[in-house]
């Protein structure tokens, strides 16, 4: 079980992520979008969406720091374990609270605004389930282990996460981790695997290149392609 969860699942999730992204890019570029519902309802979204997205980006940064910066590095900088813990606790809680508040408002909006609810697919609902299931145990784990210097995940979870990249997963490290952290990690990995198959895929189209391209884009016609192109997968036809 330990090998399956901490030795195999990370690689399965990663493989599903990469394969899914390639598949989606090749066969469903047309379906690759944010699927925004802002035209239906804008007031709540104006508050909720930035709160959630900025929150989750901050949370992501926190995870990167927590998992991939060894304590020896922070010690070398003269940051004590207690200082680090307080920083991680307050920063993490702030970002987490922002995320949860944003997500709660987004879910409320999605349920109560009829056009938005009607545009919600089964795929979306499953995605929201896993998203909430990943965020809530994570927040709870952090807050229930807040006393003293907190749970020191930098000696168990973080080395395990780093060991994944050397292809020698140290699964034993995860055996004694508090169960909430374990649940959070497993659901998190499932969520990562789900990204390409849900609307979450839009995170991979962050338009950074917009900062560097000229404003007006010119493109020449493909000389082999005149008139309409053949219908491809993803197009909704007029027949229903």
């Amino acid at each position, binding site marked *: 079980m330990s090998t399956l969860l901490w030795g195999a699942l990370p690689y399965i999730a990663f493989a599903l992520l990469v394969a899914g992204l390639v598949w989606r890019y090749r066969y469903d570029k047309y379906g690759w979008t944010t699927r925004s519902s802002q035209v*239906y309802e804008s007031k709540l979204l*104006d508050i909720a969406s930035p709160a959630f997205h900025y929150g989750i980006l901050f949370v992501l940064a926190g995870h990167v720091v927590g998992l991939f910066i060894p304590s020896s590095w922070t010690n070398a900088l003269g940051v004590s374990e207690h200082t680090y813990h307080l920083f991680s606790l307050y920063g993490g809680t702030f970002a987490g609270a922002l995320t949860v508040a944003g997500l709660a408002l987004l879910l409320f909006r999605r349920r109560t605004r009829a056009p938005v609810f009607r545009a919600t697919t089964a795929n979306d609902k499953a995605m929201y389930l896993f998203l909430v299931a990943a965020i809530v145990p994570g927040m709870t784990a952090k807050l229930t282990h807040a006393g003293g210097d907190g749970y020191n995940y930098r000696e168990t979870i973080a080395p395990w996460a780093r060991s994944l990249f050397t292809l020698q997963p140290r699964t034993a490290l995860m055996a004694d981790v508090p169960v909430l952290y374990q649940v959070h990690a497993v659901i998190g990995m499932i969520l990562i695997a789900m990204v390409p198959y849900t609307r979450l895929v839009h995170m991979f189209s962050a338009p950074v290149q917009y900062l560097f391209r000229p404003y007006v884009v010119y493109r*020449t016609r493909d000389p082999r392609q005149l*008139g309409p192109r053949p219908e491809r997968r993803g197009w909704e036809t007029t027949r229903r």
Partner: protein
Amino acid sequence: MRPMAQIAMVMNLDKCIGCHTCSVTCKQAWTNRRGMEYVWFNNVETRPGQGYPRRYEDQETWRGGWELNRRGALRLKAGGRLHKLAGIFSNPRLPEIKDYYEPWTYDYKNLTDAPLGDDYPVARPVSQLDGKPMKIEWSSNWDDNLAGAPAHGGLDPMVERLRRQAADKVKFEFEQTFMFYLPRICEHCLNPSCVASCPSGAMYKRAEDGIVLVDQDRCRGWRMCVTGCPYKKVYFNHATGKAEKCTLCYPRIEVGLPTVCSETCVGRLRYLGVVLYDADKVTAAAETEDEKALYEAQLGVFLDPHDPSVQVACDEAGIPYDWMEAARRSPVRALISEYRVALPLHPEYRTMPMVWYIPPLSPVVEALSETGHDGEDARNLFAAIDTLRIPLEYLAELFTAGDTAPVRSALEKLAAMRSHMRALNLGEEPDPATARAVGMRPEEIEAMYRLLAIAKYEDRYVIPTAAVGDARRLEESAVPDACSLDHAGGPGMGGNGPFGQNSGRKLLPLVSVENFHILRRRQTADTPDEAKED
């Protein structure tokens, strides 16, 4: 000089009767899909009126188009690149569907399924967004023909501006004498702010013909283009989550056919043709400080296809000969640059729009006739154009950022044309002073009359094909590859199931006559040799 070619349109507003045929045929051709119910690539607005979406011209609210920054350089009115990316999670300036209208259908089933009773069953309106019964409160063209003008008329952003300037002297009386229709499509601008707003780089301007398109495979639904376009002619398809816009019917244009809206216009008021312009001058022209000078600045960007140096430059830039020929014969170029009767819509947005309008003289003539004067007498008309200050100023707000001089000049040319042609038709000697008063020669007036009033199909649409040498193949590619009825079990019964020669889902082949005979011979021949016989 970097010459480029652009397919542009001119609409003669004098002839628009507001029948909406262009809108309907366009909708049937392009936007009759789910998610596009509220989308009108072509719409016809009654002016004065709020337009579609409501009050789209109020750029203080919607922040469309460009503005100048402190250094006098162009900047997107909705904010620069970093500002856009920071606000990407929720576009604060996006029109909601209620700014257009909530699309609906009717519960027709109730008409046949309702139980027997004392009351007639009715088909209640049902929202196409949430599937619930709804109250219809607004729609496209709700204010058609000035319907509700006393209540809504003042909401027209142009009327608001006029009133501010005229210190409330202007009351809404002119709606009784002054009304016209404004058909609108995408402007296919030379300096498109929608393209500049797209974070994904999915929108582009085609180098060959200047048509602005959305790459559906690259659009990620950030919705910045909807805000960026000051004309609000990029729409968000709420079913697919992607932006869609008027394509200038490029599959038709590529084979030399006019757009659907032009082809079906009963007033024959649309003109399509090539305009050559210098791409190097576009930014500088759009940065002209004085808004009222933007019309002249845009005229300065266009190149004269009769100029030998332009011809050489175009040749070097790879513009094909038949495009040059089309540019010389272009009715659009004639109306814009030669006769100068066509004007751009809202040049103050600094996008360099390429659908231009001939301002309507008819409201002036009408007003004049109603007062008992001869509405076609040149002197009466000239005087009336000046006296009917409101129409003139209103038109100037639309077409020249408030400068009345170009609008007056265009209207006077139309007035001179009416007067000159009436004299000819009545067998009188036209007064040469009439033509001279507007700076035209009688022959020019008569040529303009042929273009505007006779308006032959081949004069209105001078469209070079994408590749003349390959015309035959192009002709066939204009037909869609697949017939909508051609699927297994469909009414066309084209598909033949998963077995045999005609098996499975296949594209409808275009059978030419030769193929037909070959096929028939093969099917009826007794020996293979017989089938091969010619």
